[in-house]
């Protein structure tokens, strides 16, 4: 074969390969779109957004250690209440994602199409993250209102939102993992809360009790440590690596479980 032919075919193959990559993304987006369609059709999305806004609005503006009580133009009170509301909302959104597909058998429809477990899981992950993103976008009026009340640390606000998104991603990933373990949505919900509470509270609590190396390890494992440091306005690569590791660990474990189900 002459050189030119070799080069042309090489180019053709690389284009095909590239095309395949685009296709992978395309399939993830198709799964995401269907997922979003289904939550918006079934009112789950609206209920979740309204309740989230109501709860976070109540505690940011009216009750407890709200903005007027703190008497500072800062969104710290919003970030600490959203930290808890999202902790409970996310398992409710992720619980059905794989469990329901396994129960009804539609997972078989999906996985006998040219779609990998990996694409299905990321598609679902992305759908929930987008939904949380929409809910957080709707809290931007809080930010503008506080801004009009006094000088705001804009950096801290944006990193606060980033912190919420990262935390949400971590819990979505854990939620999808829990959902892939069972056919029962309630079990998936409780399991997500059970795993989540370790990252949310228990590791931090243990870190405070212990000293030395174990204390440091638990402190690193605690999600709230990393969340706090980000909402304070410092983006450290250490924190980013922590969140990204949890996200990938969750999705990879869920993939292993889905693949194992087809092998057994």
């Amino acid at each position, binding site marked *: 074969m002459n050189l030119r032919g070799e080069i042309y*075919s090489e180019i053709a193959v690389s284009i095909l390969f590239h095309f395949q990559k685009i296709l992978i993304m395309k399939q993830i987006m*198709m799964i995401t779109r269907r997922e979003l369609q*289904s939550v918006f059709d079934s009112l789950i999305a609206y209920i979740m957004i309204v309740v989230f806004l109501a709860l976070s609005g109540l505690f940011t503006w009216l009750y407890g250690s709200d903005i007027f009580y703190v008497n500072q133009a800062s969104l710290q009170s919003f970030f600490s209440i959203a930290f808890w509301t999202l902790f409970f909302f996310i398992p409710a959104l992720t619980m059905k994602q794989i469990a329901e597909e396994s129960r009804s058998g539609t997972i078989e*429809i999906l996985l006998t199409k040219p779609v990998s477990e990996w694409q299905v899981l990321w598609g679902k992950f992305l759908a929930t993250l987008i939904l949380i993103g929409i809910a957080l976008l709707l809290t931007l009026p809080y930010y503008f209102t506080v801004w009009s009340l006094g000088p705001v640390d804009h950096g801290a606000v944006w990193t606060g939102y980033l912190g919420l998104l990262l935390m949400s991603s971590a819990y979505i990933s854990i939620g999808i993992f829990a959902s892939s373990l069972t056919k029962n949505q309630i079990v998936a919900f409780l399991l997500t809360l059970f795993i989540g509470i370790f990252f949310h509270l228990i590791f931090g609590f243990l870190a405070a009790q212990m000293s030395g190396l174990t204390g440091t390890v638990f402190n690193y494992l605690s999600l709230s440590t990393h969340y706090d440091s980000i909402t304070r306005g410092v983006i450290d690569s250490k924190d980013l690596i922590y969140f990204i590791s949890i996200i990938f660990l969750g999705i990879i474990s869920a993939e292993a479980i889905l693949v194992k189900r*087809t*092998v057994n």
Partner: protein
Amino acid sequence: MKFLILLSHLNILLTMDIVVDGITKTYGQQNAVDNLSFRVKTGEILGFLGPNGAGKTTTMKAITGFLVTNKGDITVGGISVNENPGEIKKHIGYLPEHNPLYTEMPVIDFLAFIAGLQGVNKQDIEERVAEMVRVCGLRTEKHKKIRELSKGFRQRVGLAQALIHDPEVLILDEPTTGLDPNQIIEIRELIKRIGREKTVILSSHILAEVEATCDRILIIHNGKIVANGTAEELRRQARGNEMLIVEIGNSERNDAYRALSYLPSVELVDFADQSDNLFSVHSQYRQSSVKPIFDMCVANGWFLKQLTPVETKLEDIFREVTKN
């Protein structure tokens, strides 16, 4: 070299034989499928029969790549399901057992979603969905949510999603369960029409259905093939000897009996009834006694009141090969 690969891909488009080569699937201690091998040719409709738990569904799931087998390989058009499941899935349309569907979705949205997943071009999706709605008779139901549909229409949606990308291979796991007789006939006609240029495997436990729809029948039991052939061949295999009911008029009962027994092609004669001149005649292996009986009657001046071949029912064959 790359040209050759391209050529082999073209070849795939021409022949889409399914070759199942010694697959074994174990659940715990039990072999659901035990060293199973068979082949389905392009344009053939294969009926997959067997009692519940025989391994039909397992085999079908293995062909679609949803299950991974412990041993053996399956190729579809030369592509191995172990090595390249993603490629195979593009060529297969699959209707799973119990027909799972996203019940909260409207029919056309669901079909468009599946078309997208199957890699149908964006500009063609609408056309393909419309085509499927037409072929599967879903026009009146297309905007309804799937959960609002009757079982018959759901089954059609299941078939439509399997056919949406015009696959060369169709795997249908019990496509007519839960349908009423009219719907069964409609779906059967549909499968026959579509199946002409495709490779089709269809499982069922309704024997008449398999006989009416399929070119070839494969009966499996405990994960092994126990019978393989056309309905006609299976009948011949099960009872190699022809059996006739003969009734002869105006003759002495014992004379007729003796005359029948003396025919060279006859193996055994029985009185079928005590009072009448009614006999059941078993022929020798692979021989027919129809003409000799007629000639014998003519020679004796008797007349035939009845000369009926007794068909072995497929049910009997099924029972015979699948009993433990």
